[in-house]
Structures are given as structure tokens and as C-alpha cells.
């Protein structure tokens, strides 16, 4: 039995998972309209490659990945593109984002899918394939998966962690995925295993999901010796055991410092749903166009649905039968999720759960009280940070200090706010401080670039001025020299120049022209070949012969161009 480790802190909120696991996964009906945001992963925003009016097929690429840290996006069903533009985004701001809006034609016709045997391909080709299929981390961070399949050059890979912990309350989509599609999850993890070549593969599942543990264990056993290094490990249920760093800590005892990547410690972590989509992409040629979404909360029939990316959230929640007092939608769980400002916002690759919000289910928080520095938040913090200090400095907008207290190590899990006896919305303060710091960094960068451009412009202008002045000086010197020469010429010139002293200037000009003509003649004489004069008759005869040959060759060449470059 594998020895498990513990992470510090954490909380045990009511899990509220049993409501949505009673029914099997169902396929959500085709919505009236799909709005697929182009930017659905960390990294570059994909460029749209379709235009309004274009007919698209299910799985057809509509957004080209921009850069290596980026991931393609695809049409979730067949239909017509009716708009490429701004559409409400699945984002706490309620702002719009570039999206491709598709009107389904109801046929749901696939593009030609090309399953591949990835074992016969180069690892680089497999990574490219994952990027083109839009495989990103479906646990919520949506980091492009292909960029995570590169082992560190100096540190050998020891463990690959497959994250099936699913620690956040209400969410059960990974649970159902493991119960119903365990084999494909394991096979997908096999792709990551073959790319990273770790010694062990550990599938961590919280022990409140016994069915998933059974199903996954059975799947690993059934797949036999090829998956011998796979091990399904039940981990204690404690939020946030599903955080990548926490799960790595629990399964391997390794702590990944904030300055390092997990591969630098010989470990990498993927979500189970990511492994599943990787397998679908490679073995079935299906890009990521749908995902499992838990519809729960204040609804009549909580359940997990296979939902097309781009389905409007409001429309989707409708199929679960929201109760009358529903007054909003939470995307994600109650700990880390956010209230969706616009129900038109589409389901994206990061949408693992939609919770119908009602005042009865989530009563409004009583007002915030002053921090009494009790330290409960520091005890609950799974990252061993000091939230009360970070709160203090965020509140005072002393952002330098918040960074000294490792604000950017905060995963915004919400444990601190959960235990705070003064009900301070700590995570909100941290998010505020983080986005303020990012914005300042952007401004600083812009200012630095403006400064260097300004300095370069000044340098260039100065250089141009100097060059111009030099040119002018040269021209003036030449003019002076010419004038002197002309004056000298005029002095030596025959009588006429002397007889018309009134036209002195004109004469000088004429003299200059004459001098220039003389110079040109001399130049021409120099340029002409000098050995063609005074030829002996033999030489002349030779020349004539050569000329004749040349004329003949030219004539044949015109008919039949000579073959060139034979020896090159």
C-alpha cells in the first residue's frame, strides 16, 4: 500500500455531491445557438479561420492556435456561422469576448475523423495533435495539455499524477466520468505516460467516491500488463485535495516550490477529464467540443450532462428544471466559482459545474467584521500562507508587501474565507490585489517600451540631422572647389571671357558646363576599351571570326535554349 502524505490546512465543507450522482450521464439537447469563445485556454488567443455565412461541420477547426502555449477551438456541431465577434463571456466581469456564433443545422454531421495509432508517431507529432485537437486542462485551469507533456531535461520523471480527487462541493462530473468511462480515462492517461515516461502513474481519487475507485481499479486491471505501473489511490476527503499541488503532496510527499515547475521535481499532474479528451482526440480523431457539466443546486433534477462547448448557460440550466426562486447561476463550485453575470454566457472548456443559485441555498453573508488576527485562516490555508497579513496589505493597497507574503502562491481556494469568524471576503481582496499588480506590471512594461522608442526616435533624429549637415557641408565644399576651378579656368580662358566682364557670372557658368562636358568626355574615354584601336589585320580577322561564331550560336540559342545548371 502506498504511503500517503498530508497537506497542511484544508477544510471540510458539506460535499453536496449525492444529489447529482443518482442518474447516469445524459447528452444535452442541441441548443438553438452556440457561441464558442476563441480564447478558452491559457496563452495566445486563437485566430478565427471562419467567416459569417460559412458552413461548418462538427469538429471542424474554427480557431487556429496562436503560439505554442495556445490551443485550437472547434465547431461543436454542424451548422452555419452567423457571427464572428464579441459575445458575452463566461467570466465574472460580464464583459464580451471574441467568439464564433454558430446556428446548428440539426444534422450534427462530423468532419472526417482520423483516428491514429499514437505509438507509431513521434512524441512531437502527438503533442502537435493534442494542440490541434484543443486538449486543455479540464480541471478548471485550462492550461494547454500538450505543453505539459515535456519532461524536464535534468530531472527524470518519477510520478505522473492523474487527478480524480474532485474535492469541490456539488461537482460530480469527474466522478461520473470515472464511473462510466474508466477505460478511456486510463488509456488517455496512458498517452501522457508514454509522452512523459514516468516510473509510476498514480490516480488519486477522494475516498468519498467508492464507485469511481472501483471502476478505475477494475479498468486498470482489465487493461493488463501494459498499464502495470498504474495505481488507483484513494485519498482522504478534505478540500482542496484536488488542487494540483495538494494532490502531488498527498501522493508523493513532494512540495513544488512556486519558482519551479512540477516537472522540475519529476512529477506532473493531469485531470481525469483531460486524459479522457486526449484519448478521444488521438484514438477517435474527435477534438474537444463537449464536456461533462454537473447541473445542480436549486434544480428539480440534478444530473451530469454531456454538453457542447458554446451552449448558453441559461438555456442549459433549463433542462435541469430550476426551481422558481432561482436567481442566478454559479459557474464552478461554491468555493471557487463565480456568479455568472449574463445567462447568455456559453459553457466553455473550464465549465465543470453550473449551480442554480437561490437565497435559500446560499444565504447572503452577514456583514464583514474587523479582522481579530485569530490566525484561523493561516491554519486553514493549504499553501501555508498567512492570509491575514495578505489581507491587511491588500486592503491598504500595499501591493509590494502582499507579494512579499507570496500572494501569487495563493490558489484562491477559499479555505481562509470559509473559516474566517469575521466573515471577511479574503479571496476577493487577494483577487483585487493580484489583478492590480498585473495591471501595474502591464503599465510598467508599456512605459519601458515607450521610453526606449522615444529614445530611439531622438537618436535617429539626431543622426539624420548630423548626416544631413555632413552632406550639405560636402556639397558646399564641392561647390566652392568648382567655383574656384571655374574662376581659374576663366582667368586662363581666351580673350572673349575677358572681353565680356559684364557676363562674368554667366561666363563662369558656361565655363563650368564646359568643364563638366570635358570631364564627362574624359570619363567616357576611360571607360571604353583601349585595345580595340590600331589592330593588326590578323587580329581583325580573328575578331570577325569570333563575331560570326557568336551570331550563329545566338541564332541556335534562340531556337533551342542551352541546358544550364547541369553541373551545379
Amino acid at each position, binding site marked *: 500500500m502506498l504511503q500517503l502524505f498530508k497537506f497542511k490546512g484544508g477544510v471540510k465543507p458539506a460535499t453536496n455531491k449525492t444529489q447529482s450522482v443518482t442518474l447516469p450521464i445524459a447528452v444535452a439537447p442541441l441548443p438553438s445557438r452556440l457561441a464558442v469563445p476563441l480564447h478558452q485556454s491559457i496563452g495566445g488567443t486563437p485566430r478565427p479561420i471562419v467567416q459569417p455565412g460559412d458552413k461548418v461541420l462538427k469538429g471542424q477547426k474554427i480557431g487556429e492556435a496562436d503560439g505554442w502555449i495556445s490551443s485550437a477551438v472547434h465547431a461543436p456541431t454542424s451548422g452555419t456561422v452567423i457571427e464572428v465577434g464579441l459575445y458575452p463571456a463566461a467570466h465574472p466581469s460580464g464583459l464580451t469576448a471574441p467568439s464564433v456564433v454558430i446556428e446548428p443545422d440539426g444534422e450534427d454531421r462530423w468532419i472526417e475523423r482520423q483516428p491514429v495509432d499514437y505509438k507509431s508517431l513521434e512524441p512531437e507529432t502527438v503533442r502537435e495533435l493534442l494542440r490541434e485537437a484543443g486538449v486543455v486542462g479540464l480541471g478548471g485551469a485550462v492550461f494547454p495539455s500538450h505543453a505539459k507533456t515535456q519532461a524536464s531535461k535534468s530531472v527524470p520523471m518519477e510520478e505522473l499524477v492523474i487527478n480524480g480527487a474532485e474535492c469541490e462541493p456539488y461537482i460530480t462530473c469527474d466522478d461520473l466520468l470515472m464511473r462510466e468511462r474508466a477505460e478511456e480515462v486510463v488509456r488517455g492517461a496512458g498517452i501522457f505516460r508514454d509522452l512523459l515516461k514516468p516510473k509510476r502513474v498514480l490516480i488519486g481519487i477522494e475516498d468519498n467516491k467508492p464507485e469511481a475507485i472501483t471502476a478505475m481499479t477494475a479498468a486498470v486491471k482489465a487493461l493488463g500488463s501494459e498499464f502495470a505501473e498504474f495505481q488507483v489511490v484513494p485519498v482522504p476527503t478534505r478540500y482542496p485535495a484536488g488542487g494540483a499541488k495538494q494532490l502531488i503532496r498527498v501522493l508523493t510527499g513532494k512540495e513544488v516550490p512556486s519558482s519551479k515547475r512540477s516537472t522540475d521535481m519529476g512529477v506532473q499532474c493531469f485531470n481525469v477529464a483531460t486524459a479522457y479528451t486526449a484519448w478521444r482526440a488521438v484514438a477517435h480523431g474527435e477534438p474537444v467540443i463537449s464536456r461533462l457539466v454537473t447541473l445542480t443546486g436549486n434544480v428539480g433534477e440534478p444530473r451530469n450532462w454531456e454538453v457542447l462547448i458554446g451552449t448558453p448557460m441559461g438555456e442549459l440550466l433549463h433542462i435541469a428544471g430550476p426551481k422558481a426562486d432561482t436567481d442566478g447561476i454559479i459557474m464552478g463550485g461554491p468555493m471557487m466559482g463565480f456568479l455568472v453575470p449574463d445567462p447568455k454566457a456559453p459553457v466553455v472548456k473550464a465549465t465543470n459545474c453550473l449551480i442554480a443559485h437561490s437565497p435559500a441555498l446560499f444565504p447572503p453573508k452577514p456583514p464583514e467584521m474587523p479582522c481579530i488576527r485569530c490566525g484561523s485562516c493561516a491554519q486553514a490555508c493549504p499553501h501555508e500562507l498567512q492570509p491575514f497579513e495578505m489581507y491587511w496589505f491588500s486592503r491598504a493597497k500595499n501591493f509590494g508587501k502582499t507579494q512579499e507574503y507570496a500572494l501569487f502562491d495563493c490558489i484562491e481556494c477559499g479555505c481562509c474565507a470559509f473559516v474566517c469568524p469575521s466573515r471577511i471576503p479574503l479571496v476577493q481582496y487577494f483577487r483585487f490585489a493580484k489583478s492590480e499588480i498585473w*495591471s501595474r506590471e502591464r503599465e510598467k512594461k508599456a512605459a519601458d517600451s*515607450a521610453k526606449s522608442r522615444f529614445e530611439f526616435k531622438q537618436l535617429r533624429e539626431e543622426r539624420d540631422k548630423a548626416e544631413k549637415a555632413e552632406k550639405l557641408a560636402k556639397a558646399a565644399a564641392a561647390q566652392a572647389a568648382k567655383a574656384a576651378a571655374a574662376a581659374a579656368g576663366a582667368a586662363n580662358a581666351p580673350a572673349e571671357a575677358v572681353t565680356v566682364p559684364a557676363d562674368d557670372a554667366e561666363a563662369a557658368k558656361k565655363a563650368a558646363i564646359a568643364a563638366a562636358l570635358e570631364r564627362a568626355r574624359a570619363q567616357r574615354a576611360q571607360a571604353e576599351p583601349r585595345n580595340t584601336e590600331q589592330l593588326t589585320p590578323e587580329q581583325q580577322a580573328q575578331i570577325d571570326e569570333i563575331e560570326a561564331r557568336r551570331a550563329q550560336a545566338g541564332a541556335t540559342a534562340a531556337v533551342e535554349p542551352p541546358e544550364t545548371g547541369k553541373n551545379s
Partner: protein
Amino acid sequence: MMLAALAVMALGAVILGAALGYASIKFKVEGDPLVEKIESLLPQTQCGQCGYPGCRPYAEAISKGEAEINLCPPGGAEGVRKLADLLGREAKPLEAEEKPKQVAVIDENTCIGCTLCIQACPVDAIVGAAKQLHTVVGPLCTGCELCLPPCPVECIAMATIPETVDNWKWKYPVVEVRKAA
């Protein structure tokens, strides 16, 4: 004895003096480091709204004590506060009103391709050639408005940078104030 003591002191003075003289040449500081620090706090728009021809001249004027620290509108109240912190002066309210961040936009139907705005742009953010359409490279524009006056056909306008998902910021948590029972 007395003489020896005097000689020792005199020798000490000569050696230390020589050392100091050498150090003043060897470790000579080019320019004023304070100017650099002040300049790094300025937004580098090079707009001249402070009355000085660029951010560096303004920084020099501040370091000499010739200029107030509240003359930079693009820096905003935040910039004034930072300068006040650095210089130990009192933060004063900004002279002009604070504007949201803007970029210049050229109306392509009106531009006659005169290149005057290109010459005016301090950060080379406008591209174009004589009798060719000019355009502003948005990400490089600092919003200094220096291209507005030279344009003979007034085809340049300032547009506020819209809030997008990428530059959106989480708001400061609102503290609810309730009457004590």
C-alpha cells in the same frame, strides 16, 4: 616626540586625502541617480503636458526642485503619490483632471497622408508615408495627444481603451456599512 606626532598626523592626512581624491575620480557618478529614479516613476508618454519637453526633462526639473510633482496627468494621483513617497514631499492633488487611458485613432476616410503626425509622434507609433494612408499602431500609442494639433484635416481622434476580459480588474471589495444595533 611632538614632531613625530605631527608627522604621523600629517602623513595620515596626505594618505587619506590621496585616497579620497582617487576615489572621487574612480567612482565618479555620471548624472544624477535621483533623476533616474524619478523618471522610472513617470509614465513615459512624452506628452509634454507638464510643460517640459518629455519625461526626462520633467524628472530633471523635479530633482532640481524647479517643478511641482503634480503636473503629470497621465501618471494620475497614483503617480503623484509615488513621487511624493520617493521625494519625501507632500502629495498634492493633480493640477489637471485625470483621464482614462486613450489611444489615437486616424479616420482613414479623411487622412491625406501628410506625414505631419508621424513626425509629431514621440514614440514612433504611427506608420505611413507621404500621400499614403497613415495608421496608429494601437499597442504602441501612449495617448499623449501630440499628433492632434499638427493634423491639417483633424482626422485624428482619441478613443478610450475599452475594458476587455484581458485588462479587466477585480474591484476593491465593498465594505458594507450598517448601523450598530
